[in-house]
């Protein structure tokens, strides 16, 4: 299972890098979304996918049966943060498009202001 997850994470990272190298701003934002999804899955996989019982002390449940709760707590935090950042990025992109009149990163270099 870990191998399958690793391949999925690799594919997500690959797609993210491809999208982020494009010129269109909206593709870049989708790329950042995929990148954080990849990072979150990595976090989940690295904690180990074993464990069937919930991490609560009960009769007949030994330590080896527990699912590790920490990666789940971490991933939840990371998802909330990336959700907030992505929504901020989308609003920023919209405002920038309104003000600057383009979403092409080639045209947003801004080198003309300083020599």
């Amino acid at each position, binding site marked *: 299972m870990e191998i399958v997850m690793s391949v999925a994470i690799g594919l997500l990272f690959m797609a993210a890098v491809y999208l982020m190298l494009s010129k269109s701003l909206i593709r870049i934002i989708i790329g950042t979304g995929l990148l954080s999804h990849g990072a979150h899955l990595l976090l989940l996989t690295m904690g180990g996918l074993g464990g069937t019982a919930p991490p609560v002390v009960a009769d007949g449940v030994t330590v080896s049966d527990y699912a590790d709760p920490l*990666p789940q707590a*971490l991933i939840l935090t990371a998802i909330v*943060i990336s959700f907030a950042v992505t929504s901020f*990025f989308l609003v920023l992109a919209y405002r920038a498009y309104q003000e600057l009149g383009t979403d092409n990163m080639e045209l947003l270099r801004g080198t003309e202001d300083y020599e």
Partner: protein
Amino acid sequence: MSNLALFPVVIPLIFAAILMLFPKKLHMQRAVAIGGVAATLASALVLFSKVSNDGVQAVTLGSWPAPFGISMVSDMFSVLLVLSSTIVTLFVLFYSIPTIGVKREQSFYYPAVLFLMTGVNGAFTTGDIFNLFVFIEVLLMASYALIVHGGEKPQLRESIKYLLVNIISSALFVSAVAYLYSVTGTLNMADLAVKIPQIEAVGILTVIAVLFLVVFGFKAAIFPLYFWLPGSYFAPPMAILALFGALLTKVGVYAIMRTYTLFFTMNTGFTHELLAIIAILTILAGCVGALAYFDVKKIIIYNIIIAVGVILFGISQMNAAGVEGSIFYLVHDMLIKAALFLLVGILTVIFGTSDLRKMGGLIKSYPLFGWTFLVAAFGLAGIPPLSGFPGKLLIVQGGFEGTHFWGSLVILATSLLVLLSVVRIFIYAFWGEPVKIVTIDRKHYLSMFVPTAILVALTVFLGAGAELFMPFVSDAGEVLLNPSLYIDAVLKE
């Protein structure tokens, strides 16, 4: 166990939340914001005296035993940084009132500054690597709001790039934390410091250490990851730029210093060697930029990068002189960078431009301002007895005691280039033929100049009174060099 370590984090958070309730009431906004920062400063001072008397203070949230709960740890190093970041924020707030503009003040400028402070102080205080990620996100979110605040065209353009770079580095941060967790099974920094020496797979840990260096290197603007900094920092108004220049990169530097002294010490022959080489390259790259531009903002921005290199070179030596020098220089750099940004801010207001070639002859009309600028410039370059000198001296000494004497030679040589880059501003702006200047009324000028001058005076005091500060700096260095002090304080609660 005392909760004191949490106060510099929680107080600005509460005040920021209160400030969001009445964005349009200008005087209330100013008063509450300054009150909030002053309260934070008071709590930081109490914490400082507590740490200097009783040693490292650790709190574990929810009273869970240490590796399970999230630890907040205040040792001398972190409390010194909390103190200096709070002082810088206070003076920048005083400077913002006349310069930032009523429109910005009424659209959540002060809450954003206080949220930024929450994140910065939290990042300095936390004792858990994932919690460090969360606090860095808090301060980044506030910095996104600040960098685009006002919505001018260059700001919008540059904040897209700033956001993108930081999102990528955050994703790498999460990945690095994941790898670290899978290898060690813990994320508490003190617990990591216990577990990492017991792990035999040094190779994979070295990879993780370098990955963390990349992550923090993005924030700290080390070579070759500093490419985003000059453009992004150029866009926002001067008060925000001063905050960013003084605080944001320093969080990255702090994170590198903490992780590379506390637990990534299993393969210093590779990781710290790499850090030393990168630090020297960072200094050189910064010098090229600082000398290449005729724009006052750009010159000081590139000086941020140079200082990052100097500090990291000191820490890479891992000996008492180098580490103490780095700590001293870090505190000095926060104060002097803020002061210099505020000074060139006044320059750009007076001349109405930030281009050096359109300036000149200011020494006749503003003599005191000119001499204050010269003192700050000398302080930055490290001319004794000003505040850049003791830190740089110790760092250079650390390099000679260690294996990197060539690095110390580079630092000594580039000090001259730093001096040249800032004295060039002085020569162009204050000497020569007077040019037409914007007339600003006396009161407005003083409201900008007084907080700046006090900040410069503080750096002079820090340099001239270095003997007074050195005991604290050596305390801080001791904890960095003996991780057992840190570990005991956290795990024996």
